[in-house]
Every structure is written in structure tokens, then in C-alpha cells.
């Protein structure tokens, strides 16, 4: 089943105004309902290697696994379970692969990456994330942060040490408490949500949300939601206009219409009689 007609996608990535390379990596394939974003870290160019491996491996593995398991044809419950299982398995495999490269090649020692993956199927999306790359959702003009960062700042906010406003002034940005490829095992946080026609999903690296206020992100998606590539470029431009201290990447996925799994001739006939 091809979701290309139900999901419109756009993306943009930029080195920013300060850094010399872009350590972010992104991939998006509307036809299989997959969006991946990774923000690499590690000396010299190892960060790019880590995020590059993550995005390439997850995309190719997911493409194969979706075809093999007929993921987009499965019913509600079975599909949800299967989507989470695929995400878990493929992320674990990717983690090992980065971890092994880092251990076997000295120039890659200590490399790692954050990750956020959105997998759409059957009017739902499963979101996996590790670290401080985020997924936001714009629904009925309201922007909501769906993922919660695995970061020192988020922990300080949770424990009441810092308010959200104070956190913006913290000097301890960009300290993540989980990352892909740093240890032999990693646990991705995975949740499944309903997707609605009209929703716009934004995957972004911290280069966006550190430089652009949530209100301005919401403003952009509301003003430019009808022109997704323009919105993606506008978000990157705003981050750069505000200083562009980090690489900035965005992936946008807009739900154009419902995408039920059981979109077969039989189910359509049955739904007639309901």
C-alpha cells in the first residue's frame, strides 16, 4: 500500500551560520510513511558518520521490513504492535552497527547520534526517539511538542530545578542523556498516536528549537502549511537569522487525507453496510 497520496512531505537541512560541517542527516519517504532525522555528535566528522549510518540503515531496513511484513496491510492492533516491534528491532540493530564502527575504527571513537523516527500507518503514527531531536505536531493550528528530550535540561525541568523559560538561558544545552551508538544497548522511547487529516508533523534537530521559539514555529506552520517546502525552508532560515549556532534540519509530514490500513475492496463494501 502506498501512502504517497495521503502524506505530503518536505525537508530541509543546513549547516547553520557557525559550524563547518553538517552533522545532521534526514530521510523521508511518504510512500512508506517513514521520516527519520538524526543529529550526529563526535569529533571531527564522526558525527556525520554516525547520523549518516543511522538514517541510511533505518531507511533501508524499514523499507524491506515494511514490504516483508505487509505492515501497511495489517489491522489496527496487530499493526501497532508490529510497527513498534520493527522500530525497536531496527533501532537496536542500528545502534550496534554504529557502536561497532566506533569501537573498531579509532577515528570514529565515541561517535553517536540522536534520533527521531516517525512511522505512519493506518491513521496512526509510531514515534521513536533518542536524545534531544524532537517531533512536534500542528493540529487545528495548535503546536504541540510530542517527544520529550532525553537531556539534562529536561531532567532539571522535570525535577523542578528550572522553569522552561529559565532553561532557555541555561549554559548546559545539548547535553543528552541518551544517544544511539554510544553504548552496546540503547532504549528508544516509542509511543503511538492517532493521526488526523490536516495534521502537520515536524521532526527537527535542536538547531531549530534552540534558535526559534515554539510560537514562531507554530506561526510558520500555520502561515505556510499549504506550501510545505516553503515552510521547511522558512524554518531553517529563521534559525539562521537568529544566529544559526548549530546545524538545523527539519522534516515536515502533512496528512492530506485518512490512510486506513484495510483499504481493500472488501472492507469498503463492508463499511457500506455498517
Amino acid at each position, binding site marked *: 500500500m502506498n501512502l504517497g497520496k495521503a502524506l505530503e512531505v518536505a525537508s530541509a537541512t543546513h549547516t547553520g551560520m*557557525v559550524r563547518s560541517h553538517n552533522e545532521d542527516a534526514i530521510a523521508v519517504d511518504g510512500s512508506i510513511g517513514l521520516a527519520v532525522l538524526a543529529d550526529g555528535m563526535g569529533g571531527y566528522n564522526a558525527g556525520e558518520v554516525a547520523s549518516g549510518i543511522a538514517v541510511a540503515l533505518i531507511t533501508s531496513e524499514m523499507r524491506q521490513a515494511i514490504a516483508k511484513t505487509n505492515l501497511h496491510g495489517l489491522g489496527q492492533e496487530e499493526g501497532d504492535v508490529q510497527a513498534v516491534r520493527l522500530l525497536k528491532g531496527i533501532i537496536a540493530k542500528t545502534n550496534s552497527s554504529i557502536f561497532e564502527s566506533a569501537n573498531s575504527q579509532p577515528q570514529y571513537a565515541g561517535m553517536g547520534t540522536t534520533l527521531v523516527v516517525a512511522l505512519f500507518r493506518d491513521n496512526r503514527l509510531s514515534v521513536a526517539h533518542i536524545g534531544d531531536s524532537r517531533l512536534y505536531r500542528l493540529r487545528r493550528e495548535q503546536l504541540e511538542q510530542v517527544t520529550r528530550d532525553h537531556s539534562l535540561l529536561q531532567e532539571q525541568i522535570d525535577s523542578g530545578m528550572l522553569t522552561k523559560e529559565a532553561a532557555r538561558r*541555561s549554559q548546559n544545552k545539548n*547535553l543528552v542523556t541518551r544517544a544511539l551508538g554510544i553504548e552496546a544497548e540503547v532504549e528508544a522511547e516509542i*509511543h503511538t498516536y492517532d493521526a488526523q487529516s490536516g495534521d502537520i508533523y515536524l521532526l527537527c534537530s535542536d538547531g531549530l528549537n534552540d534558535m526559534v521559539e515554539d510560537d514562531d514555529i507554530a506561526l510558520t506552520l500555520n*502561515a505556510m502549511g499549504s506550501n510545505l517546502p516553503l515552510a521547511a525552508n522558512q524554518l531553517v532560515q529563521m534559525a539562521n537569522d537568529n544566529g544559526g549556532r548549530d546545524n538545523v534540519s527539519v522534516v515536515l509530514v502533512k496528512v492530506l487525507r485518512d490512510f486506513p490500513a484495510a483499504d481493500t475492496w472488501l472492507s469498503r463494501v463492508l463499511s457500506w453496510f455498517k
Partner: protein
Amino acid sequence: MAKLILTLDGVVLKEYALTKERTTIGRKAHNDVQIDNLAVSGEHAAIVTILNDSFLEDLGSTNGTLVNGQPIKKHFLQNSDLVEIGKYKLKYVNDQGAGASAADFEKTMVLRAAPRPQEPRPSDTQSGGVRTDIRATQADTQFNTSTQTGGVRPVPPMPAQPSVQSQAPTEATPFSPPPAPPIHMTQPPAVGPITTLTGAPSAAAAPAVQQGVIQILSGPNAGRELALVKALTTLGKPGVQVAVIAKRPQGYFLTHVEGVNFPMVNGRTLDSQAHLLGDHDIVELAGVKMEFFFKPAV
């Protein structure tokens, strides 16, 4: 590295580097910053430093602690904050950005290992996930900011969730930082792990651009003025023709968003590129004429 500069009547007495997780200030000799003056309580205040951030806390002192003239119980210190204790002043200096090279800015790094695998993961509910994360946080780092002990009243800036309160360890120190978390440095430490972790205030305000205004010249709303204060201002009719004006450091840019027809500026039709608006440009969009101009400074 953040430091405190102690002064009395404008005379510098001493400098203290905030190297310790907890730096105490008070009259008694065991304090890291000793101020031998009767207006200062024996244990007057403490500064907890976590990597590059420092938090000042008044330890229930008799005469109180001021930051920039305001009495505080707990305060997240910002560069060049002025702490007053009695007649003494302590200036907090933490200009991280100055020493580090541009390439060191805001590199993402891993602070700590993943949560323990034995931590049960709840099902697909967001709130469940949140709670587990908090528990992992508490267990891993032993942040215990919400503990109520020792006559000290930490004031959490945000209402902590009940689950956080109940799971906070009850040790004597109300504000003890994590025991030196294993920092996975993912970048060769040039000066030391702390000095390379530089950050800067985010979302820096764009440099001042003269205030742009749109005045509608035709149609039912003719005469109306619209100040372009937001980062983006939408013009037109959704589904028919929409354009936005983006406010950028370089000026105001008009960009086509949707619709078959593109906007016109001074009689010329735009392409899909953003167009920098000049003073008194005439914009035509969805059959409505409008004029862009810069508002004269008042």
C-alpha cells in the same frame, strides 16, 4: 569557569572560582566563601554548580540574600548577576562564550548512559512514559531538589508532580547535584570537559529593523493599516491566493505561498523567490492593492 568576585564598597576583596558542586557562603570559618561580618549568618547561602549552570540558594539566613536588588530564596544565576549579602557584594561572572572558539559552540554531547534496562516501560500512553522517565532521572542522578528537610525551604519554580515528590530521596542536602555523571565526551576536550560545553542564549532577538507597515488601498478594507510586527504576516485568502511577509534582519520579504496567481509588486509579477520589499512598494494580491512602507520613527 564561573567565578564570584567579592567586593565591599566597591573594593575587590577576593575572587572565588566555582569549581565545587556546592560552594557555601557564610560567617563561619568552614564556609568556602567566608564573610566575617555579623550581618552575615553562620551558614548564609549556597551555590550549587552543575556543569556550566549555577543555582544560588539562601539557607534561611537572618538578613536574607538579594540578587540584583531582589530578595531571593533560590535563583538561577546568570552572568553578571549581583548577589548582596549584608554590605558585601558578590558578582557572578560566567561568560562562557568568550573563551571558546566558534567550533566549540553547542556541540551535542551525551551526558549519561541509557536508563537501566530493568526499568519497566509502560504501554503506549504518553503520561506513563513520562513518569517512568522521571523515575529513571531521580534514580540515576539523585537530583533531590524537592526534598523538604533541614529547615531549608527550596522553592521549586515549577510545581513538581506528586510522583516526583514521593520518589525524591530524603537526604540532608536539599540541593545536591548528581555525583559526577560519566560524561561521554564526544569531542576532544581542548581545555577540559566543562569549558568546551559552551552555550549561548537562544533565539537571539533579530537586529532592529525599521517597523514595516502594510496599508490596504483597495477593496472593502481600504485604508486599514497592518503593522508587520510578527516574524510572518499572512496576506490573502486561504485556498485562493496567499502570500506571507517575513520579517528578517535584512528587511521584509514577500513570498508566494499558495494559489495559481503570484503576487505583483509595482506592477511586476513575482516568481516563487522571496522578494525584498522597498519603501512605498505597491503589492497586489488576490485583487487587493496595498502599500508597504516603513513607519517613521516616533
